[in-house]
């Protein structure tokens, strides 16, 4: 158990509304990641962070922003949610002495 929690676990929202998902870790690892999972696809990287205020884009970053003001929290924001952002969102961490990634339980987001 890598001590990762995600909140909320489920959310239904309307098109055009802002949404923020939170990832919290208890072990103070430097690297944190946000992925999305859609049917027919494996997970795809949205953004990642390699330290407080240090973030970078992944493969599918359009329409998403992130922030990391504390080591333990990594926030993913959809500024104006669209139906194409309906997905399951996973947060992950990797320990400082390893590249291995560990995943949180996921957040199911539905945009209507």
């Amino acid at each position: 158990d890598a001590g990762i929690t995600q909140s909320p676990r489920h959310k239904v929202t309307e098109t055009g509304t802002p949404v923020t998902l939170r990832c919290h870790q208890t072990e103070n690892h430097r690297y944190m990641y946000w992925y999305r999972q859609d049917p027919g696809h494996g997970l795809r990287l949205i953004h990642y962070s390699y330290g407080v205020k240090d973030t970078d884009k992944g493969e599918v970053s359009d329409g998403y922003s992130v922030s990391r003001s504390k080591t333990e929290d990594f926030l993913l924001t959809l500024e104006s949610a669209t139906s194409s952002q309906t997905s399951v969102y996973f947060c992950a961490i990797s320990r400082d002495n390893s590249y291995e990634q560990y995943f949180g339980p996921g957040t199911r987001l539905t945009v209507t």
Partner: protein
Amino acid sequence: GIQVEQSPPDLILQEGANSTLRCNFSDSVNNLQWFHQNPWGQLINLFYIPSGTKQNGRLSATTVATERYSLLYISSSQTTDSGVYFCAVLLVSGSARQLTFGSGTQLTVLP
């Protein structure tokens, strides 16, 4: 970008059977992981295996980095092995880390 292909896409087994899942990748990678996604959606780490062979109980994995493939072996399968098995490869460049997933193998083990 790097391509990760998994085969077969679907596999149905009788309990007790053995199986081999394959992961091919298109370029050199820094690392490779195998995951099991259970029916509740949880992603479980199976192996972290840039090269060589590892075993954990009924599961084992082999990665041949020079030939750009990895194999996951499941022996004496059980119904609890059902779910989706993902291979993911890691590229590292400075601070950048990109984990790219394959599309997975859906495994169903029948009692």
